[in-house]
C-alpha cells in the first residue's frame, strides 16, 4: 500500500514535470518565433521606407535632404539593397553610395545626368558618420565642395598633410584628390588603425565635363590602387565620390547609360519628326539634319557602355564630343527660332 502511494506521488511529479516542460517549450518557441518575425518586420519596414525615399527623391532634381531612419546598417550592392536578412533586387537602380550606410541619419542628394539632354536623375546617399576629406584648392575641388550638401561630414585641406587629419571615430573615411598621385602617399597616422578598406581615396584627373577617376583603398597603412574609370558631367563625378568602390561606380554608370540609350532613341524619333516637317524653315531642317548624326553617335556609344564593363574611355569621349556638337546645333535652332532639339 505504502509502495503504491509512493508511486502515485512520483507519477504526479513526473506528469507535472512533462506538462510544465511542454508548456515552457511552447512559450519559448512562440517567443523566439515572435522575436525573429519582429526583427524581419522592422527590417522590411526600413527597406520599404528606403524604397519610398528612393522613389520620392529620384523624381526631383538638384535636391538634398537629411532623412531620419532607424539605426540600422543598410548594405548597398549593385542593384541590391539589404537590411539585416531582408534584401531586395532593383535591377535598374541608380544609387551611388558607400557599400554600407550606418547610423540614424541618411543624406540623400539628386542630380540630373545630362549628355547633353537629361536622361535620368542620379541618386546619391551617404551616412553622416562617414567623413569626406577634399584635398586641394583648385576650382574643381571648390566646385565639388559646393556641390556636396552642407549636412555631409566634410573637410577641405589645401594640401595633403597627414598630421593635420584627425580621427573623429568615423566608420569610413574617403579622400578626394585633384590630380595628385595617391600611391606614394601614406595613410595619416590617426587613421592607420582603421580596418583595411575603410579608408578610401579617389584621384580625379580632368575637369567638371569629363575625365578619369582612380579608386584607392587602404591596405596595411598605405593606399592601394583598385582601378581606373571615367566620367562625363558633374553628376557622374559626384557619383564617383559617393560610391566607394570601382565596381559599384561602374555598375551604376552602366544603368545610367542603359537609360540614356532609351532616351536617346526617343530623341532620334523626335528630331527625325522635326527634320521631316516641311513647314519649318531650311535653317531649322539643316540643324535637325546635322543633329540626327550626333544623336545617333550618342545612342550607339550609350548602347555599348550599357552592355560592357569596364566603361570604355573612347565611348565616353564619343558621347562627350557628340554632346558638345549637339549643343551647338541646339543653339543654332534657337538662333533661327526653330523648336529646340532638347
Amino acid at each position: 500500500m505504502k509502495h503504491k502511494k509512493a508511486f502515485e506521488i512520483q507519477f504526479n511529479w513526473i506528469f507535472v514535470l512533462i506538462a510544465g516542460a511542454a508548456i515552457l517549450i511552447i512559450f519559448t518557441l512562440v517567443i523566439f518565433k515572435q522575436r525573429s518575425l519582429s526583427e524581419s518586420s522592422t527590417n522590411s519596414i526600413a527597406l520599404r521606407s528606403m524604397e519610398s525615399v528612393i522613389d520620392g527623391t529620384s523624381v526631383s532634381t538638384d535636391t538634398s535632404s537629411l532623412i531620419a531612419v532607424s539605426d540600422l546598417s543598410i548594405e548597398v550592392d549593385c542593384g541590391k539593397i539589404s537590411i539585416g536578412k531582408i534584401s531586395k533586387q532593383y535591377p535598374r537602380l541608380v544609387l551611388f553610395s558607400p557599400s554600407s550606410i550606418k547610423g540614424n541619419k541618411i543624406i540623400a542628394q539628386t542630380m540630373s545626368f545630362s549628355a547633353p539632354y537629361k536622361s535620368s536623375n542620379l541618386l546619391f546617399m551617404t551616412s553622416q558618420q562617414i567623413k569626406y576629406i577634399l584635398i586641394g584648392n583648385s576650382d574643381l575641388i571648390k566646385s565639388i565642395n559646393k556641390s556636396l550638401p552642407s549636412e555631409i561630414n566634410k573637410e577641405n585641406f589645401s594640401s595633403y598633410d597627414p598630421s593635420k587629419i584627425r580621427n573623429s571615430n568615423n566608420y569610413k573615411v574617403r579622400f578626394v584628390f585633384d590630380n595628385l598621385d595617391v600611391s606614394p602617399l601614406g595613410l595619416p597616422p590617426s587613421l592607420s588603425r582603421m580596418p583595411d578598406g575603410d579608408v578610401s581615396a579617389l584621384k580625379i584627373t580632368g575637369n567638371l565635363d569629363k575625365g578619369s577617376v582612380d579608386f584607392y583603398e587602404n591596405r596595411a597603412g598605405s593606399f592601394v590602387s583598385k582601378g581606373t574609370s571615367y566620367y562625363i558631367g558633374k553628376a557622374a563625378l559626384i557619383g564617383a565620390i559617393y560610391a566607394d568602390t570601382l565596381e559599384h561606380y561602374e555598375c551604376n554608370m552602366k544603368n545610367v547609360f542603359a537609360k540614356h540609350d532609351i532616351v536617346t532613341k526617343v530623341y532620334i524619333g523626335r528630331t527625325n519628326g522635326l527634320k521631316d516637317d516641311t513647314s519649318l524653315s531650311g535653317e531649322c531642317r539643316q540643324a535637325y539634319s546635322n543633329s540626327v548624326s550626333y544623336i545617333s553617335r550618342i545612342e550607339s556609344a550609350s548602347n555599348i557602355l550599357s552592355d560592357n564593363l569596364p566603361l570604355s574611355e573612347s565611348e565616353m569621349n564619343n558621347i562627350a564630343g557628340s554632346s558638345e556638337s549637339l549643343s551647338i546645333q541646339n543653339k543654332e535652332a534657337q538662333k533661327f527660332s526653330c523648336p529646340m532639339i532638347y
Partner: protein
Amino acid sequence: MNNKKAQIQIFETIAVLVVFFVLLGIGFIFYTKVIKSNIESDAAEISQSKSVSIAQRAMFLPEIQCSEDNVPKENCIDTLKLDSAISVIPDNPLYYYDLFEFSKITISEIYPDSSASAKTLYNRAAPNDYKRQFKTRVPVTLYDPLTKTNKFGMIEIVTYTK
C-alpha cells in the same frame, strides 16, 4: 479507495491541462486573425503607395516631359516625344516593367479636341490574381513643338496590384 482518488486527481490534472490548451488555442486563433487583418490592411497600404510611386514616375519621365534648353517643364508632355516614346517603350519591356510593373498609362486630349483618341504609352496586363486597381488622373499640358501650341490633356495611370 486510494487508487480511485489518485485516478480522479490525474483526471483533474488532465482536465485542467485540456482547458488550458483549449484556451491557449482560442487565444492563438484570435491572435492570428488580428495579425491577418493587420497584414491585409498593410498590403492595401503598400499597394496604394506603390501606385502613387508609379504615377509619380510616369509624371516625371524624361522620355515624354517637355524641356526648353534642357530645362524640364513640370506637368507638360511634348507630343513629338510622346509619339517617339510610344514606339521605343515596347522595345524595352523589361526596363519599363521595373518602372511601371502591371499598369496602363494613357494620355488623352481634353481641349480643344476632346474627341481625339487617347494614346497608350505603356500597357502591361495584370495576371488574374491582381485584384486591386488604382486610377490616378493628372491634368497636363500637351505641347506640340511643330506648331508651338499648347493643348489641355489628361494623363491616366491605372495600376494593378495584388
